[in-house]
């Protein structure tokens, strides 16, 4: 008995300690708070370099980008976030539509080709990845691979394809097909895909299962394959990447972006962080961070092993045109994919 009473007492003391600790808030005047939906490893490297260069402290809060966006929407005008850095642009578009983003400094926008920035100038593109087909090298020969992503809806791919319908990387493909070939084609394609495919919860699983031979081909962004290779070692890779024909809707560039919150009370420091992300130092940090993303600033090379960004000829659908992906989501829901 006395034992459990002691336990209870110490637990109460911990409670009281937490309560006291809670009152001594943290953020100093010079510090900014970064809501981070980008891969933590990349962000940690960027923040370290930024703090060293500017002596502005960055408090990083990492989470799922969509949950962070929902959180920022709830927080509204009193959000503690100064900067939001994400893996995809539809989340940024969702916040822009709600009027929660501040305009990005013109010099920052100018550092990146304008097709990768927000049309309204409310967010800046930071790095990019390209949509590809991963194939198991012992199940599929290079000559059998499709030149267009639309071919994957044909019956010959039945039972061979894997993809993750709930991943944020997937809706942009639907949006791109809708933009280029119309909603009817997109819906037809989606139906074919549903018949042909095994569904996976995320892109990490897609690439791992294609590598295992569980699925013959899979829809991913290029960097998932490079990350799996980094984790497993080159010898364990039984898969390779295939790039769709130039101009195909599958040959789509997805952009990781950043924005300053309108509610931020540290506008200058926040803008400075965005400027750093697109600076040569920032972009080189990304290239060397093992995230295997393409830096978007001209003249900064990608990680070794990647096909050079200049050799890609992606389809002419910009991230800003992809919008918040609501129509694509509705189409997936209509077909019962979500």
């Amino acid at each position, binding site marked *: 008995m006395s034992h459990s009473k002691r336990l209870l007492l110490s637990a109460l003391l911990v409670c009281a300690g937490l309560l006291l600790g809670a009152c001594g808030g943290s953020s100093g005047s010079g510090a900014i708070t970064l809501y981070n939906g980008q891969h933590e490893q990349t962000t940690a490297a960027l923040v370290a370099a930024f703090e060293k260069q500017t002596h502005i402290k960055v408090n990083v809060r990492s989470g799922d980008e969509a949950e962070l966006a929902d959180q920022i929407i709830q927080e509204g005008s009193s959000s503690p976030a100064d900067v939001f850095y994400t893996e995809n642009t539809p989340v940024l578009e969702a916040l822009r539509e709600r009027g929660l983003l501040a305009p990005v400094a013109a010099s920052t926008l100018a550092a990146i080709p304008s097709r990768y920035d927000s049309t309204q100038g409310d967010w800046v593109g930071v790095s990019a990845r390209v949509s590809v087909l991963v194939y198991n090298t012992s199940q599929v020969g290079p000559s059998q691979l499709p030149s267009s992503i639309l071919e994957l809806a044909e019956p010959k791919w039945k039972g061979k394809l894997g993809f993750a319908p709930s991943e944020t990387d997937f809706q942009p493909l639907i949006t791109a097909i809708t933009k280029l070939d119309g909603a009817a084609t997109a819906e037809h394609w989606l139906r074919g895909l549903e018949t042909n495919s095994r569904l996976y919860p995320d892109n990490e699983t897609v690439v791992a299962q294609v590598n295992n031979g569980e699925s013959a081909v899979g829809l991913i962004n290029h960097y998932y394959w490079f990350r799996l290779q980094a*984790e497993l070692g080159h010898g364990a890779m039984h898969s390779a990447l295939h790039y769709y024909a130039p101009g195909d809707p599958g040959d789509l560039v997805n952009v990781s972006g950043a924005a300053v919150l309108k509610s931020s009370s540290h506008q200058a420091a926040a803008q400075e962080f965005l400027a750093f992300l697109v600076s040569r130092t920032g972009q080189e940090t990304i290239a060397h961070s093992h995230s295997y993303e393409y830096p978007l600033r001209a003249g900064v090379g990608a990680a070794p092993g990647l096909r050079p960004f200049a050799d890609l000829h992606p389809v002419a659908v910009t991230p800003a045109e992809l919008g918040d992906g609501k129509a694509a989501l509705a189409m997936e829901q209509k077909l019962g994919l979500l």
Partner: protein
Amino acid sequence: MFAPIEPPANRWVQAWSGRRRWPLVSAAGGIAAAALVLLPLTFLVVEAQHSGWSELRHLLLRHSVAVLLWNTVRLALACTLLCAVLGVGAAWLVERTALPARRLWAVALVLPLGVPDFVVGFGWVSIDPALHGYLAAVMIMTLSLYPLVYLPVAGALAHVDAGLEEAARSLGLGPWQAFRKVTLRQVWPALLGGCLLVALALLAEYGAFEIVQYRTFTVEIFTEFKLGFDTVAACALSLVLVLLSVAALGGELKLAGTGRSWRAGPGAHRRATPVALGRWSAPALGGLAALVGLALGVPVGSLIYWMARGSSTTLPGTSILAAAAHTAEYSAAAAALATALAVPVTALAIRHRNRLTLLIERLAYLPMALPGLVVALGLVSFTEHYAFPLYQSSLELVVAYAILFLPLAIVGVRSAMGRTSPHLEEMGRSLGCRPATVWRRVTLPLIAPGLAAAFALVFIFTATELTATLLLRPTGVNTLATQFWAYTSEFSYGAAAPYAALMVAVSAVPAYLLSRRMTAPARGEQTR
């Protein structure tokens, strides 16, 4: 189901001991708990209201909603039934038979609770990538949730007076009839409470279903949140979850009767003579080994595989020990708070049962059936508007955990308090002790095993919680769950595995203490 054992009507004793008045402390505690629980529920209703009738109708009357409803209900029914069978069977073997190494089994059977759902799903899919759909969901969820039945039932079995069973046998009942009519009746509230927890946890589950591609309401709600950034739609859909849990709560209440199974006093209460298993030893051991092997071995095995196989480096500036310390601190604080809230809620519902006290108790179960994201966003919204200095503080996080896991504490406390006769407390009062003294010297020692069970259950669930932790933790603070998530979301399975292993280890401590407390005789009990 069972008729209540009514005390002899003795009005002046009741009036004299003040049993009809709500003791002030209980009332204050009950109101505080109700207020906390109402925070996320209010948020839900207010947000859903924004959607307007036509959008709500569009959302809820899609044909896929019928599929979601059917998926959710059939899963909840099958898993709850399977968990009940496995939980009671395992508890009986551990508590009532001469099972070899029962101490060890008592700990091992609880441990699957300490494995987070995303680790379980990950483990199974890495063994068999083809695993998906209804049967996969039923199997995975049954294996991870059966301890919710096992724990309260084992706790109750340990305190059932063997004399009653022996009396039943001497009156001519066969062993099965005696089990059904006497033993099962004694553990009935614990069993129902456990089943209720399983059903509620299933309604809110997301991680495992996402992995095995099984679509329930909660999966759909997360889709609205994650791909549509549509809080309004997500909250409207969550209302369906509230309705489903109201059905479960009502059903449990009906089956539970009055929840009283106490007898006059602890008296010569003693442990049953263990049943010799004889030639059933091997099948019993085999069954338990299979259960623990599947529930614990598969996820832990895949962790060990990745620890050996993965080559990823760790993130800079992170410490596994700091993360473990945060996890342990938050879990202990949340467990203490939830247990402290569960005591008045339960005391009111059992000792001062009326419509209001029962409503408060039932209300307290609801948040557990809601997706963690809904509860967390509710707290975000509330603190942003009314308690900004507390936003993203440790206190807010601990309160969120307590709201989410209060039902676990209530079930723990309830089964102990239901077995405790109020006459003992009245006797204490009649001997001139003040209420506080009676509470300290009579009630507390009697319900201590229940408090320990409540504390341990909440501790374990908090240690593996991810969604609310990501949203509400103080900026810069990492727990084992958040670090595991951060590593797996960048493919660093090798670096992630030790965090998951430590999560299981942290949960093993309360599981171990709990099993000791349950199998050790409480003070005042005699063993033979």
